[in-house]
């Protein structure tokens, strides 16, 4: 395996306002290799793919194809150079035939229109390269998602792609279908293509990849050979090492009070296995797990955003009806969602309105003075970096938007706080401030459920940690067990037992 890389990224940097998305990342994919790219949300995977496929121009660094630097003005240029992208969502046209989808825009022509015989023959030949034999005149939408994904790969091959960039190609597939796609990726690579495979299911990564590169916070943590690495090592690389000075910020915790949040046999969208959960006043319960493990889904179930199919949920002793976000807010159970931009912030409304809105959810007379007082209180308390509460929230930095969101909920004086990655995409200073606020709230009796993909952060903030895997709660760690190694083992061993 000493062949020179077919495609390589050297010192790639990418900056967005206020965020360094990629910071000097190197990556090399050889011909005949499946190279997996893993990392949590915000690690920089998507940005890297967009750079490689010509969607984003890069700020610094270089793309090397066959050792020579190239620049892609747009995805068409990348495709012309032989770099093809296969996306997570199926990008075919379901009503059109398999052949038409395969040859879209490149149909063999004759005097009048498309030469059907020729295009069917060519489509069949292209499909054969991925081991498919289909009636190519049938609409693509009538085939399974896995077949549609294979057709996308066949199309890339027919376009003479030499580098396949697969962005979570199995995300919408079940296990058996995913196996089909994985096998195809291996076969295609074996014929001399370079495949970059982005995914987050570790069993899939181990099944398909020759080498695995781990990204974290826009940096490359390391590249591992599948043959010599372990799941534990990968998980550790993805979720990060705790510095030696172990965080003991939680040691001074007063014992927890009565149960605020109490769930019995809860199941629903995204979490099939019923689970129990208790959070006491003054307690911070951490949720650990890889991306896709069900940690966000658990919060969404509790908050009533996702459909709950069974189980009983009580907030401060009062039963909460299923799927009623407003009832949850009324009872004092609130969710700060992971997707700050799409689910949290009102970008065109002012900071004042963003903070006050949960308090103003009822129909009543509006008082700007009241709203301004709330906003001023939260700006001061959470150190939101905005001098003018009338500023549009969309113009704030990520950290300040997150604080604004936190302020919205604190203003509503909840009993239980569900925080989904409250420090994602937030700079170091704001991260520490948000964590300190969570600790302070706990001292005042708040019950908190804290989701983070950083083990370090969970250890810093949590009294207890639930580990999730495969959309179920697999273990609980508290007290002496609460250490980085134990959490990693809980997540990783669950990975092993699931395969």
């Amino acid at each position: 395996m000493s062949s020179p890389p077919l495609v390589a990224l050297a010192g790639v940097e990418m900056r967005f306002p206020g965020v360094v998305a990629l910071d000097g990342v190197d990556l090399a994919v050889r011909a005949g290799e499946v190279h997996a790219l893993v990392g949590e949300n915000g690690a920089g995977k998507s940005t890297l793919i967009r750079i490689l496929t010509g969607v984003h121009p890069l700020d610094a660094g270089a793309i090397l194809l066959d050792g020579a630097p190239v620049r892609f003005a747009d995805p068409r240029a990348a495709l012309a150079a032989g770099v093809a992208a296969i996306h997570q969502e199926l990008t075919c046209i379901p009503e059109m035939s398999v052949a038409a989808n395969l040859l879209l825009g490149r149909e063999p022509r004759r005097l009048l229109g498309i030469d059907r015989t020729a295009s069917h023959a060519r489509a069949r030949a292209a499909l054969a390269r991925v081991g498919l034999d289909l009636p190519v005149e049938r609409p693509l939408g009538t085939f399974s998602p896995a077949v549609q994904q294979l057709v996308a790969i066949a199309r890339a091959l027919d376009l003479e792609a030499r580098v396949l960039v697969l962005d979570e190609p199995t995300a919408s597939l079940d296990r058996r279908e995913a196996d089909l796609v994985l096998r195809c990726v291996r076969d295609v690579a074996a014929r001399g293509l370079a495949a970059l495979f982005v995914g987050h299911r570790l069993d899939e990564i181990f099944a398909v990849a020759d080498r695995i590169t781990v990204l974290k916070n826009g940096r490359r943590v390391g590249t591992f050979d599948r043959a010599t690495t372990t799941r534990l090592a990968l998980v550790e690389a993805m979720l990060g090492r705790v510095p030696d000075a172990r965080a003991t910020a939680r040691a001074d915790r007063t014992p927890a009070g009565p149960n605020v949040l109490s769930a019995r046999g809860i199941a629903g969208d995204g979490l099939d296995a019923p689970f129990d959960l208790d959070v006491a006043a003054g307690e911070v319960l951490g949720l650990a797990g890889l991306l896709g493990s069900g940690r966000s889904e658990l919060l969404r179930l509790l908050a009533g955003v996702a459909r709950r199919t069974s189980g009983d949920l009580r907030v401060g002793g009062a039963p909460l009806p299923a799927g009623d976000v407003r009832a949850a807010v009324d009872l004092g159970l609130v969710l700060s969602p992971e997707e700050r931009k799409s689910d949290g912030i009102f970008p065109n409304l002012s900071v004042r309105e963003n903070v006050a809105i949960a308090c103003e959810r009822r129909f009543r007379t509006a008082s700007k003075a009241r709203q301004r007082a709330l906003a001023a209180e939260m700006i001061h308390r959470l150190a939101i970096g905005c001098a003018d509460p009338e500023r549009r929230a969309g113009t704030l930095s990520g950290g300040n938007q997150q604080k604004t969101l936190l302020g919205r909920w604190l203003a509503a004086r909840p009993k239980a706080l569900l925080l989904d990655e409250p420090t994602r995409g937030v700079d170091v200073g704001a991260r520490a401030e948000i964590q300190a606020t969570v600790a302070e709230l706990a001292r005042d009796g708040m019950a908190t459920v804290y989701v983070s993909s950083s083990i370090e952060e969970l250890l810093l903030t949590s009294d207890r940690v639930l580990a999730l895997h495969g959309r179920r709660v697999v273990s609980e760690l508290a007290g002496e067990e609460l250490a980085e190694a134990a959490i990693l083992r809980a997540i990783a061993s669950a990975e092993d037992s699931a395969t």
Partner: protein
Amino acid sequence: MKSRALPAALSLALLLAVAAVFVPHFLEFDVHGGRLHGALADILQRGAPLALLALGLTPVIATGGVDLSVGSVMALASSCAAVAVARGESGAAAAAGIALGVGLAAGLANGLLVTRASIQPIVATLVLLTAGRGLAVLVSGGGILAFESEGLEELGRGAFAGFPSAGLLALAITIATAALVRGTTLGLHIEAIGDNERAARLSGLRVDRVRLAAYAFSGLCAGAAGLLVAADVGAADASHVGLYQELDAILAVVIGGTSLAGGRTSLAGSWCGALAIQALSTIFLFLGLGTPIALCVKAAAVLAAVAGAKLWTRRAEATA
């Protein structure tokens, strides 16, 4: 934020100022029958139905929707009211109740299609755009249905302190609605839903109820507009009342500073926008120019408004 209505108000003022200078006799007025007559009074009077449509449409658009059915609902409401009066079964008050009731029912139907059946607003309200006019023709039996009612005539052509009462009524309703929306948390709810519906749900807002109310209010306003038109003319013309008025109303709302993408909104701006559109028509009438030219100028106004909105959002994004 207070300045959102400002561009529309300035456009209206500018339009009137230009007309005052270049259009002969534009500012002249006389008084007979206890009422002012002249171009300005005419704009206030004839612009009233459009102003009502735009008023109703504003919360709908601000919550990220649209109501294409307002013109047809206007026709349906005016036909129902006219039939009731023509048969001699009801007085002016009952006829008004019927028109408003019909509008409210139509608005509720739109709202339920959008919120309960989760149909896209443009499709959901297209149903009543077509069906509403068909029903209106059916109800009135086709053709023009004339009626006599002193009460309605007073509403349509009467005057209050010398000013045309229909115009004053539309203005008063606009002011009252603005006071309700701005004086309560409703305004914040409407803008929040338009800006980010998912976040609004998570914040505990009754998203569906607010949107349903917006469509119901739009229907109610369309009913009121239909009533005014019927009262003004003393007849209902099911095939022509409100025809293409939904487009003018949308235009008025956009000129008024409400974004078609939802979010920030201004009821006063919509009123100014509606009057500006009416002022254009009246000016062309004064100049003796035909409808084709008026339509072309209106199209130019649409382009200018859309380009302005684009610039506005681009500038907003640039500062983000």
